[in-house]
């Protein structure tokens, strides 16, 4: 019988190395997958991981895709460090996108910088409101935030679907489920001429910096880490558990909402019922691969963005289904969790006592 036996002391070095091991294993798994599908694995590897970033435009697309991932992941990581498990960034991203779009459509054909500023605020508040629901229910009724935040994702998806089929539908859009295209005044300025990379990337980098300071320098961040490591110690010290639930969920919701805003005011330029590209869920993987560390989130977001781009390329050049990206994401998470288990436990073969 195979048994897992807790190691007396988990290796500190290995706990940092395990994300890298997971990436390597994911690559090997990918090569095997390509061969199993009858593709040349080396060719597959090139198409998936090298072609997407072989030119400057590709790099800009990588940064563009990484932007919402960074925003969502840093917000989630703040809560995850205190064991506040917000699984609903996807829904909060949609809520932020809806709120920002409402502002853009309200000011349709108007000019002025105030529109974008209001959209940023509306996006963040939209996401926070969506995240406030699980926070309130947890504090008031001790509901499980994992379930509530996850279920609210589906509510948000239906809400945006209803809106783009109804109140927000483009009146001249031949009944397509999408809004008008936003005015230039409601679009984020482009950072890199000739690409789609916009100011949202600046938001993301700033969010990572602020997140870093919050987590490692501020007392509130320290309190959240204490709560994550030892709940009783946090209570002993008098840290408010309610406050941590609020901070954890609102930071996740606010950042996800900002990511939603940056999608509708960025590459999309309108709202449709496909606001999100599963960024809210992928960001959970990003946060864990990054060990909830802002620097790690930067690199893990780039990796995850590459999986998105690689998946698109694989559809185009290898005639593989679009779900290939999800397969890679899933492998990454599985290998990460697997290596984490092996860091803390060792496998022992035990004779079953007669």
């Amino acid at each position, binding site marked *: 019988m195979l048994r897992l036996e807790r190691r007396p002391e988990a290796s500190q070095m290995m706990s940092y190395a395990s994300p890298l091991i997971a990436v390597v294993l994911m690559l090997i798994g990918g090569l095997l997958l390509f061969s199993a599908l009858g593709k040349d694995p080396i060719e597959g590897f090139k198409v998936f991981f090298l072609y997407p970033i072989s030119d400057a435009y590709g790099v800009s697309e990588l940064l563009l895709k990484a932007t919402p991932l960074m925003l969502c992941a840093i917000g989630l990581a703040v809560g995850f460090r205190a064991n506040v498990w917000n699984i609903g960034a996807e829904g909060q991203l949609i809520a932020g996108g809806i709120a920002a779009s409402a502002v853009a459509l309200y000011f349709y054909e108007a000019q002025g910088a105030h529109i974008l500023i209001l959209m940023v605020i509306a996006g963040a508040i939209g996401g926070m409101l969506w995240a406030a629901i699980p926070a309130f229910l947890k504090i008031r009724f001790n509901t499980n935030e994992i379930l509530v935040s996850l279920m609210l994702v589906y509510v948000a998806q239906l809400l945006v679907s209803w809106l783009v089929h109804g109140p927000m539908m483009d009146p001249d859009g031949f009944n397509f489920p999408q809004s008008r295209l936003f005015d230039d005044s409601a679009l984020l300025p482009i950072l890199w001429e000739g690409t789609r990379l916009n100011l949202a990337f600046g938001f993301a980098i700033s969010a990572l910096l602020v997140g870093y*300071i919050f987590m490692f*320098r*501020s*007392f*509130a961040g*320290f309190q959240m*880490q*204490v709560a994550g*490591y*030892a709940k*009783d*110690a946090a*209570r*002993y*010290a*008098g*840290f*408010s558990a309610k406050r941590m639930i609020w901070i954890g969920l609102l930071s996740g919701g606010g950042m996800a909402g900002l990511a939603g805003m940056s999608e509708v005011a960025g590459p999309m330029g309108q709202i449709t019922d496909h606001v999100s590209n599963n960024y809210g869920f992928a960001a959970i993987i990003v946060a864990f691969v990054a060990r909830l560390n802002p620097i790690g989130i930067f690199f893990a977001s780039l990796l995850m963005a590459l999986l998105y781009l690689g998946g698109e390329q694989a559809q185009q050049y290898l005639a593989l289904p679009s779900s290939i990206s999800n397969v890679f994401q899933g492998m990454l998470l599985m290998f990460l969790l697997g290596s984490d288990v092996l860091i803390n436990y060792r496998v022992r073969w035990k004779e079953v*006592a007669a």
Partner: protein
Amino acid sequence: MTSDAAEVQALRLELGGITKRYPSVIANDDVSLTVRRGEIHAVLGENGAGKSTLMKMIYGVTKPDAGEMKWEGQPVQVDNPAHARSLGIGMVFQHFSLFETLNVVENVALALPGNPDLGELSRQITEVSNRYGLPVDPGRLVHALSVGERQRVEIIRCLLQNPKLLIMDEPTSVLTPQAVRKLFDTLRQLADEGCSILYISHKLDEIQELCHVATVLRDGKVTGHCIPAEETPRSMASLMIGKELPVPEHGAPADLGEVRLQLQGLSKPSDDPFGTDLQGIDVELRSGEILGIAGVSGNGQQELLYALSGEVPVDDADAIVICGVPSGRDMPDRRRLNGMGFVPEERLGRGAVPRMSLTENALLTAHQAGMLRYGMIRFERVAAFARQCISDFNVKCGGEDHAANSLSGGNLQKFIMGREILLAPKLLVVAQPTWGVDVGAAAFIRQRLIDLRDEGTAILVISEELEELFEISDRIAVIAEGRLSPTKKLADTNIDEIGLWMSGMWDAPVDNGGQAHA
């Protein structure tokens, strides 16, 4: 222990040249030990002397690097605890090995071979617990049990298996004096029936009373053998620590100052269905005195401590007045601002965050002492505070960056105690100040508490060790079934009276001679 020709037959366990190395330390170095049939054999030593490692090897938890073990004359290699149990070796651990989410019967059933009938087992548990004076309800969930009650479960679990050798690692820490005597009767009875007992304890008077022979370990080596009956506790202590034991100096009570803690009719139904409700507790504690609260664990100590610390606030603000401020509804940080310090019973996970460094653990409660600016942590100040705490309180550790869980229990306790004392509290509440701490460190901690009281702090100590309370307290009270007895000056009472009170009988009429029923 008469020498006899058939003596070889009487040898139950022989260890020869046992050596165990860990990467950083030699836990056991060429240790030899012989236990006879029916012998109660004490293993003495400070924390870290290698006692627990040696016991774990006998019980099959770890394997020696060198040396041999003979069981009833036959060489054996104990592969695992199940093997040890099948040989007839039982062990009561110092750190409990119970599953919190299961109840008492289920925990006991797990240690037994086969698939025992739970109803029958529960009957057996009740029987054993009555016979040995170890009351425990077989149906209760372990997580709802206090530390003392968990220990009883461990002892009962071993006794159910009719062991030939019983290893007891500090078994009496949480028993009333009466229950200790009962347990000793049981152990003597077991020994008379032929069961051998390896008895680890730091309570030298108990060893003297109970054990036939003693082996002393220091730094992993056997440093001496003795017959406890021919020694004094002091002479055994110096054998154990290799030097003379410091005695706490307890000066005359200082002048009493202002009231620092006042409990007025503190009542609180327990949140835990198996907990103890606090019922109308009244007490007053003044600057410059130490009030000791004795009691068998599970009689409301945890609930009282949670209410005092603010981890579970009470509805009536006036029920708890800290330094003149009605504080019943305040959270712990608020109470700290009003001048309270608190050292909880659980060090890892409550008093300290296991994975965090000592610096970060200093910040846990010291953050109100100028260690923050604009909500940001001033790490240099925190580290300086942690270093001061380490040096003032002789905390043996790798440095302030090392994690709390890298320290031994005694050293972590010194750190937590140091942290709370350095914050200069007006009122300090301490639970089990020297639980599982070796005698040297325990004497140090007690001395620091007395010094602090001499500086004018009001100190409340809740402990299950009566000797300790009698050593440091000015006044003493007993908690039983959630009620608090009247307090008595130390000079006006004695261990027997307090021991009697621990069963809740302070209201019982006692004739004026002070003798209840002899």
